[in-house]
């Protein structure tokens, strides 16, 4: 059976930043897809290019960053080169976004009812009162207690976790088919994080919304994602079904990442750690970007860059396979 058309297809995406000291390649030739209703986790250290990839997909790269090559397709239609106005119609309606910090994502000067209503009415023909009713539904759906009382509250009157629920309601307001969730729980208390992830997962499953979940938290990925992409220094190190990547990590970097997570119930003598730090974008080595830190590095890694190739259940870019 032929695979159904993916919802989102990213091919050979390159994102660069012109700087005074030359152009930095922040995302270097990455390809992946997301199927309808699927949750793709994207993990990696800060600076690996995860958030930039998300921003590029919704067309909100901060200048001077720009897409230098490759294609992004939604339902087979190219969206990386659309005029601003056309892309704007896609944002919110087809692709929603949730950012890291709920405390700063909401405009502090407007009631959340207003922010919800304007989003709803931007994408659907509705009277103000219909939109308000819809806003109330959304607040209910994201689990805001006594939603009808809180509709006309200001953002500062909500706690961090509640604010992120409002943000999720806003992102879902027009029923997009894909949500880019960029570290949606990093700024929250640990106890709240699990609730928000569970909520996001449940809502997306109910509506058949696909999610690109950007995070550096392997635990969240293990719980939530269907597939996972591991990014390192602007490249994809390994991508595959979550079970395969977590249980049988192939790439030495993924292996290291998994080794640094304590497993509950299994007394571990020692957590492994990866020596060194991810190279700066100006200093990415020749060959495999991971070679200075790789415990299994050999000659070829120093001179030739590995491409993604199938290994076991997933695709890995490593000369070991």
């Amino acid at each position, binding site marked *: 059976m032929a695979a159904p058309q993916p919802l989102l297809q990213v091919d050979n995406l390159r994102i660069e930043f012109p700087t005074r000291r030359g152009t930095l390649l922040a995302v270097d030739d990455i390809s992946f897809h997301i199927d309808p209703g699927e949750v793709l986790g994207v993990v990696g250290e800060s600076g690996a290019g995860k958030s930039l990839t998300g921003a590029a997909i919704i067309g*909100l790269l901060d200048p001077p960053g720009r897409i230098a090559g490759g294609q992004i397709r939604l339902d087979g239609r190219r969206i990386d080169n659309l005029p*601003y106005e056309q892309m*704007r119609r896609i*944002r*919110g309606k087809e692709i*929603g976004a949730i950012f890291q910090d709920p405390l700063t994502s909401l405009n502090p*000067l407007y009631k959340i009812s207003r922010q919800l209503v304007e*989003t709803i009415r931007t994408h659907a023909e509705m009277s103000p009162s219909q939109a308000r009713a819809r806003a109330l539904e959304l607040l209910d759906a994201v689990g805001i207690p006594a939603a009808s009382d809180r509709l006309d509250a200001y953002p500062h*009157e909500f706690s961090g976790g509640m604010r992120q629920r409002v943000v999720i309601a806003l992102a879902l307001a027009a029923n997009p088919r894909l949500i880019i969730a960029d570290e949606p729980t990093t700024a929250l208390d640990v106890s709240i994080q699990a609730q928000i992830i569970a909520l996001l997962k449940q809502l997306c499953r109910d509506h058949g919304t696909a999610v690109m979940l950007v995070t550096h938290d392997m635990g969240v990925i293990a719980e939530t994602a269907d597939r996972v992409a591991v990014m390192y220094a602007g490249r994809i190190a390994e991508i595959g079904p979550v079970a395969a990547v977590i249980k049988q990590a192939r790439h030495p970097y993924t292996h290291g990442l998994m080794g640094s997570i304590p497993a509950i119930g299994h007394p571990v003598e020692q957590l492994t750690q990866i020596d060194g730090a991810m190279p700066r974008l100006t200093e990415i080595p020749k060959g495999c970007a991971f070679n200075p830190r790789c415990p299994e590095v050999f000659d070829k890694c120093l001179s030739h860059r590995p491409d993604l190739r199938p290994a076991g259940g997933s695709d890995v870019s490593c000369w070991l396979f």
Partner: protein
Amino acid sequence: MAAMAAFILRRVFQAIIVMLVVSALAFVMFKFVGDPIAQMVGQDTSLQDRAALRERLGLNDPIIFQYLRYLGDVIQGDFGISFRTARRVDVLLVERLPATLELALVAAVFALAAGVPMGVYTGLYPDRWLSRVFQAVSLAGISLPTFFIGILLILFFGVVLGWLPTFGRGETVRIGWWSTGLLTLSGLKSVIMPAFTLGMFQLTLIMRLVRSEMLEVLRTDYIKFARARGLSNFAVHFGHALKNTLVPVITITGLQLGSLIAFAIITETVFQWPGMGLLFLQAIQFADIPVMSTYLILVAAFFVVINLVVDLLYYVVDPRLRLDRSLAT
């Protein structure tokens, strides 16, 4: 509402303190600069008569009593007699008040009406040529001395083209004790150049402020999130960004209203505008202390009132300051 009441009370209290300090300053000026006796009596008055007058006026009382008496007089609106014109200072100032207030008001409206859109435009499109023109204008507005702007205007529109009157208020209409020049054609023509001169510097300030605030706000997360929700540029720029630039704009504009009244001294001199500033300047030239100290008190009162209003406007614009609501929920 309790928090708001407390907030206002605190502000009013601070305002009273400032006014007490300023009135003390005015009193000190009154008391130690120039000799009131010498101003009041002729050359041939005997020393005994002078001493008697001094005693009668209470000038030998402890200084604190003198201050309190001064304060009492001030509160009752008695600011003394002008050395220069021998008329009551309060009457003099009230005569001049409408001219200055109207000038400052027109200048402020002009500065806001032009400065805010110019600032928004340069903030949104920093690289367009019109933005560069605005920036150049703003540089000129900061560097050209106010009086020189006035003189250039007089030269071109008054002397060379002959379109606008070069001095005075034109015809005025009395409404009760207030005299307004804004209801007659000659009055309106007369106010154009002075208001432009006076407003130019504020326009520059407002434009620069709005521009930098706009640039700042456009980088915030909530603007990015608003874009990510697919809102139109119009909604993002004017609904979300502009309102968030308003708080600092209100502060500066409010404070600038006060300085408009002070800067009016210069403009009124250039255009011989019969306002308080001209009166104050004449008072300085003649060391007419009662008029100077009264002007000081009046201007301070303006500043204090404007500050209070600005604080209250914050409340209206920024819901985060209305803490009482969040306490209730």
